[in-house]
């Protein structure tokens, strides 16, 4: 078996798993009950899915320019996906889209209430 075949098979495997993970991310976004749980589906399987897809693309194309672009896309995906999830979660939390009673423990609501009381006192 030549190197080309080996690399092509590796690329194919990457693509299959990338597809499966992206599908799982989609199902998770649909199925999970609340905003924050949905963001989990949007960060972990989705990011790994994109990374595997990019790896597959890099393995299949095997050229310098493609490799560099793939690296950049992967890096920025890793940097931006958590920030996006954080912003959505934060906005959801502060506009009351997260219901505290679905959570086993909620240490943020109490912290936010205390912070609000503190600012009121200093006003």
């Amino acid at each position, binding site marked *: 078996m030549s190197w080309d075949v080996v690399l092509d098979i590796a690329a194919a495997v990457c693509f299959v798993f990338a597809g*499966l*993970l992206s599908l*799982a*991310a989609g*199902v*998770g976004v649909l*199925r*999970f*009950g*609340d905003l*924050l*749980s949905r*963001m*989990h*589906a949007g*960060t*972990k*399987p989705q*990011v*790994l*899915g994109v*990374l595997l897809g990019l790896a597959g693309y890099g393995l299949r194309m095997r050229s*310098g*320019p*493609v490799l*560099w*672009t793939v*690296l*950049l896309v992967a890096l920025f995906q*890793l*940097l931006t*996906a*958590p*920030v996006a*999830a*954080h912003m959505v*979660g*934060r906005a959801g*939390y502060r506009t009351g889209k*997260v219901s505290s009673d*679905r*959570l*086993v*423990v*909620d*240490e*943020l*609501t109490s*912290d936010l209430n205390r912070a609000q009381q503190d600012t009121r006192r200093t006003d």
Partner: protein
Amino acid sequence: MSRGSRRRLPWRMLVWLTLVWLMLWGRLSTGTLLAGIAIAALVTTTLPLPAVEFQGGIHPFATARLVGRFILDLVRASIQVTLLALNPSRTPSGAVIRVHLRSESDLYLTLTAELSTLVPGSLVVEANRQTGVLHLHILDVDALGGIEKVRADTLGIEARVLRALASDDELAAAGLTRSGRDERRVEQT
């Protein structure tokens, strides 16, 4: 912006942006190099960012450990969320917890927050740079072995970030050692 002092040229940013430009083009030539430098200069002067304080250096072994562990955790977390998404009978019990980080640096706080969103079953909901507190949402408390376990995992990520990048003084201030042995147990309040 940089506390009243005259701004120095952000060399690292210039080099990085030029590198990104070259990577986007995928080849090195005089034209792309010059265009890259010009655009990097334009971006840094028209859209200046506050300087990030960074006194440490990159420690290769610790960085390799950070990256290796991160990839492993990313795969694990992805499988976990996937199984949970595809399992119709299980309703996860979520929680929002508070984690006090040990370091005070913005850079390490940011990195820890980014990594902890991507890896264990946690997601950053709030980050407070004044107090160094992260609020994390946990997707499934039971699957991760309880709240204290998640707290310890998050502090573990921070420890790996610090070992990879922080200076000796910063490590000592956070109560960590370079090797990671004889670690001080950090009690949560």
